[in-house]
């Protein structure tokens, strides 16, 4: 607690300093209306983990106002915290997956991913079954398959998204601490703190991180108004984003969107700390593997043969 308080005080004085400094610059430049063109409050916003309760409330309300106006519907943004005694794990049955990509588009809708340019947090790779039987080499995978019908003859499918590694290279390299692992094991990003250096993208072994190369575009009628501040709220241009295990859902006891939408039940999700959970059953009774195990990133995303 004491540490938190100290951090908040440090944050407060930092805000004061920057406020004065930027006000000074603004006055010097003397451009009226510069304040509207440049969002000072976002510019000055503290790191998510250093926000006091009041500051967090302010931030949430400001974002709600901003997005409600932009998308012309009532948007609610919360910051629901982790549940005690829960660490999430994911299981994917590659013998069931048919490569229909419903998870990909379900994820896009749930998590307000940009439609132009298209950002997909889940990528489904298609492999020749023959080849995979002799071992998976990701270079053999094709994410751009386009068949009339899936599953295509002689193919198998491997969907990949953020693996929520226990020893996550991406959080280690981030120069500003804008991405970190929450107590429930979810690797999250503070979209207001990320400076867009893309070091995390260079360090992620799973290609799970995506950059907003331009201002993301989402049609107003397709926006999902139930948002989490470090989850599916719309992202600004110039920041990195990725799967958050649908933090806005799972922390309220719901399944991630991809689990719900999967038509063949290939996707499983649960609490790794609960010995009676489905994910624990899978780990104990099925043949599982993780991607690039040799890198020792210890993913919490397990593939299994059902």
């Amino acid at each position, binding site marked *: 607690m004491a540490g938190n308080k100290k951090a908040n005080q440090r944050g407060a004085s930092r805000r004061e300093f920057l406020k004065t400094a930027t006000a000074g610059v603004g006055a010097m430049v003397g451009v009226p209306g510069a304040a509207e063109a440049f969002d000072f409050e976002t510019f000055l916003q503290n790191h998510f983990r250093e926000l006091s309760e009041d500051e967090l409330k302010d931030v949430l309300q400001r974002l709600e106002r901003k997005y409600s106006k932009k998308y012309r519907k009532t948007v609610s943004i919360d910051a629901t915290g982790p549940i005690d005694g829960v660490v999430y794990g994911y299981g994917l049955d590659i013998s069931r997956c048919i490569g229909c990509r419903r998870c990909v588009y379900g994820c896009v809708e749930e998590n307000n991913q940009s439609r132009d340019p298209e950002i997909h947090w889940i990528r489904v790779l298609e492999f020749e079954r023959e080849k995979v039987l002799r071992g998976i080499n990701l270079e053999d995978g094709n994410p751009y398959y386009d068949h009339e019908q899936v599953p295509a003859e002689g193919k198998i499918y491997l969907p990949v998204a953020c693996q929520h590694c226990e020893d996550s290279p991406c959080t280690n*390299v981030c*120069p500003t601490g804008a991405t970190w692992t929450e107590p429930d094991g979810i690797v999250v990003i503070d979209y207001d703190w990320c400076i867009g250096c893309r070091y995390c993208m260079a360090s992620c072994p799973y290609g799970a991180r995506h*950059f907003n190369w331009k201002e993301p575009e989402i049609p107003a009628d397709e926006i999902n108004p139930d948002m989490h501040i470090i989850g599916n709220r719309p992202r600004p*241009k110039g920041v990195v984003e990725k799967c958050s295990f649908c933090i806005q859902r799972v922390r309220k006891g719901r399944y991630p969107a991809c689990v719900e939408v999967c038509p063949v039940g290939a996707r499983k999700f649960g609490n790794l700390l609960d010995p009676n959970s489905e994910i624990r059953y899978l780990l104990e009774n099925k043949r599982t593997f993780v991607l690039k195990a040799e890198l020792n990133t210890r993913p919490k995303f397990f593939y299994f043969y059902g």
Partner: protein
Amino acid sequence: MKTLRPFWDFTAGSVAVVSRGNRYYYAWIALLVLLSLGGLAAWGNQFVNGLITSNMRDQVSWGFYIGNFAFLVGVAAAAVVLVIPAYVYQWGPLKEVVMLAELVSLAAIIMCIFFVTVDLGRPQLFWHLMPALGNPNFPYSLLVWDILVLTSYWAISYFIVTYLLFKDYMGQKYNVNFIMPVIFLSIPLAISIHTVTAFLFMGLKARPFWDTAILAPRFLSSAFSSGPALVLIVLQIMRRVGSISIPNKALFKIAEFLAYAMAINLFFLGVEVFSEFYSPTQHAVHARLHWFGLDGRTDIAIYTWLSLACNVIAFVIFAVRPLRYKLPLLSAGCVLAFGGVFIEKGLGLLLPGMTPDMLGEIYIYNPSLNELAVGVGVWSAGALFFTLMAKVAMAISAGELRHRGT
């Protein structure tokens, strides 16, 4: 006040010096200013429209900017390493060599900082990196380490240059016992900036092409074959347009040093080739792309062979005595070494590391026009900074700019 007064005079005098010159000088400055402004406009375009103006994408998320950054850190590091032989061999005017090398370093570091800045998605949030104000992820993130060593190195180089110049300006002799330890301190720091920059890539276990212990030694050897080459060219230009005298003997010594550096650089490259191709793992796919191309795309392989050709020819020129004693040939060798290493590090190191991407997709990256314009702008700004600083330095060395009291 007593020290402020001469400093004010010094600043005013410097401004007077840089605003004087012949036609060619004005044309050169005008060109650099124009290109810098062009770069600034291109950066503005990128800032407003996003990095979509580059050809970087999720598959290849770092490109021309970071490649230039890695290359220029090498130039900054290597220029100063010339200080060792300059001191050991007692080359002619030691002070001039040290000073010009330091100026090259300063300009290179400024360009490094520019290149990192233009690569950011949200450069306005740069303050998030600063201690106390922001939240630098120290000691975990090597990017923070890099910023740390680069700024310290810049500060120490800047101090050395201003100290030497200001003493000269005041007509006082510089205190060898005071400045020599500082110069020697800057040498390990020079090595460290490039080592840390190599670690920035080496530390990524996700990228097998960079995950090799020889990357830092290779960074240093390629830096030592390119940085001094630039200094050698600069020294020759300075000798012609300025009033300093640098004996040919000093230039040939640098060329000899370059021959050793390039030999080691080529040896390291060979070592890497052996480990990638004699017992190729799945990860050798990056090396295959590097040397031969994949799926019929040989874009990167062309860079590789071009750079190898440049480096080998440069090595021959530096190594064979009668060849390096011919100044035009020597200059050609320097240009080749500089260009060869620029291609090798700027694109040859970076792109195969990121292609194929983490899920095996091959996206062939080539910088966009906007990226090139930004890059040219940064190089021009660096050259402008160097020209102005060098002009002042030369005027002081030649005694044209002196404190009135002396």
